[in-house]
């Protein structure tokens, strides 16, 4: 249904969106690249100049760097594991015939709509706090000494907070995919004599494969950028135990005002994210016309 007239109109109507996004992408990224090759500290702006890859070298060789990479990996993999497996189990549970499916869904999905600062502080104060938190009370109740979660196991605690926030997302996606599985397929398998566990393994799981892939890839993109939960609970500490790559760059930029190093760190983060994005594009692109 395209004619010359409608094609030119289309191009015109696309331009604002395209122009905005193009500028949004190119200008900041170009500047980041530019800064990454410079010595540029906002607190001492007179000392500037081209230093090529020095920022990158100092960033990568800083003591916090590799720890940050490891922490990032732990955070992402940890949250993925909890949300995908947990999400699958919860989705399977909710998919069963139960009374009150509506309210149950609402309760399960609620954490996703809580803004990150609120979620982080709820967990920090209500649960993890050794003196007043509920976990502390629980430990006292069974006779143990309260555990300082955020002090002793900062990364693990943050994984819990983030996983709690993202569990509903995984559950919702997997539940949607589950419910799109035609019952006829399962009935045919049953007629063919397959027991429930085999039906799950041979029919349900493969059907969910695409949904699980999507959950993993999309969550990874967002998880790589987690900042507030760390900022508000542990501030990256104690030391650098809960510092991720994103937090490291943020620290350099805002707290240390070191624009040059932060830019270099930013480029490293982009490279990491692009690798993930390529895989995501391939998964989505397949389904775009479906």
């Amino acid at each position, binding site marked *: *249904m*395209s*004619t*010359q*007239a409608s094609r030119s109109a289309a191009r015109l109507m696309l331009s604002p969106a395209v122009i905005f996004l193009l500028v949004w992408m190119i200008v900041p990224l170009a500047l980041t690249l530019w800064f990454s090759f410079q010595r540029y500290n906002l607190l001492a702006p007179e000392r500037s100049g081209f230093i090529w890859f020095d920022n990158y070298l100092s960033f990568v060789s800083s003591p916090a760097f590799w720890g940050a990479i490891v922490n990032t990996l732990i955070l992402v993999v940890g949250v993925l594991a909890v949300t995908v497996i947990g999400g699958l189990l919860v989705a399977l549970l909710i998919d069963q015939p139960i009374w009150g499916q509506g309210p149950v869904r609402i309760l399960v999905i609620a954490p996703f709509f809580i803004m990150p600062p609120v979620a982080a502080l709820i967990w920090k104060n209500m649960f993890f706090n050794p003196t007043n938190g509920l976990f502390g009370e629980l430990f006292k109740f069974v006779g143990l000494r309260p555990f300082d979660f955020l002090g002793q196991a900062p990364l693990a605690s943050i994984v819990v907070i983030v996983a709690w926030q993202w569990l509903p997302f995984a559950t919702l996606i997997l539940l949607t995919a589950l419910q799109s599985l035609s019952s006829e397929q399962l009935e045919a398998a049953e007629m063919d004599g397959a027991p429930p566990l085999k039906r799950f393994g041979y029919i349900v799981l493969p059907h969910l494969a695409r949904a699980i892939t999507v959950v993993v890839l999309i969550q990874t993109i967002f998880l790589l950028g987690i900042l507030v939960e760390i900022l508000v609970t542990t501030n990256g500490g104690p030391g650098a135990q809960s510092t991720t790559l994103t937090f490291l760059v943020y620290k350099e930029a805002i707290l240390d005002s070191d624009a040059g190093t932060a830019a270099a760190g930013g480029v490293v983060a982009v490279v990491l994210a692009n690798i993930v994005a390529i895989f995501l594009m391939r998964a989505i692109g397949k389904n775009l016309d479906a």
Partner: protein
Amino acid sequence: MGEITLRNVSKSFGTTTVIPDIDLEIANGEFVVFVGPSGCGKSTLLRLIAGLEDVSGGTIAIDGRDVTREAPAKRGLAMVFQSYALYPHMSVRNNIAFPLKMAGEDKAVIDKKVNDAARVLNLTDYLDRRPGQLSGGQRQRVAIGRAIVRQPAAFLFDEPLSNLDAALRGTMRLEISELHQRLAKTMIYVTHDQVEAMTMADKIVVLNAGKVEQVGSPLDLYRFPRNLFVAGFIGSPRMNLVSGEPAARRGAAMMGARPEHIRISRENGEWPGTVGVAEHLGADTFLHVHTDAAGTVTVRADGEVALNHGDRVFLSPDPAKIHLFGADGLATPRSAPAMQGAAH
């Protein structure tokens, strides 16, 4: 009014050429049917005439005026879509009034025209309903009403009956034919159903892979198909096409005999055979007979015939009604003078 001329019209989508080159003349007031198998380009051709697609080459003229570069609304045509394309959020009244509203007509004028159209189409009781509350046939009429109020030079129909069940299709076919008689306007009708084509058309354009195979009146196409494609496409059940000995004997590469032009006999005939499937419809009987000489032949017999699976029969094609085709697929012209005027 309503005279449409196509010269050297071609259409390509990217590198795929859908319509290579078409010339066509449509006279004022004619009911023309574009018919052909799926993908033959008939809908594309209609959309080119409507202006919903640009031609890749050639010209389209309406009443002598070159409209090739004009927008659809300016061409003075109205279209009834396969899905009716009614505006679901508007009442029937507003659906029919929409084109008039777009043309900027007075409210009073719009009301009058809408009521007139509704009366003609028996929609007066439904004017305030939404399309979702109407039956298939009623929705069709609303679509037609929306086309009528525009008082177009010609009406375009894109497979309008495909979405209806068989019974409704028969009724709507009659209604559209009656509408044509009443309005006496040019109508171009696209369908893949050759029964619709045969019953409704003044002129049929048979299309195949973007090419016009033949243009003519329904009976012209029935009696004198110009090639194998048209011979096999027009007529239901399909003409029996036989190659090999029976064709060679008559001096052709392929011979064709319609099921209704073959005599059945229990005693003697040209092709002996055994009845395979026998379809008894009461008014007709269709027999699918396996013969050695001519393969499986479909034969139509009048009324009820007591022949069933396994019976032995003899088939003889009526010599006056045989079609002969050369190796190139073209029909060798039959002795037309003898055929004309001869009652079937």
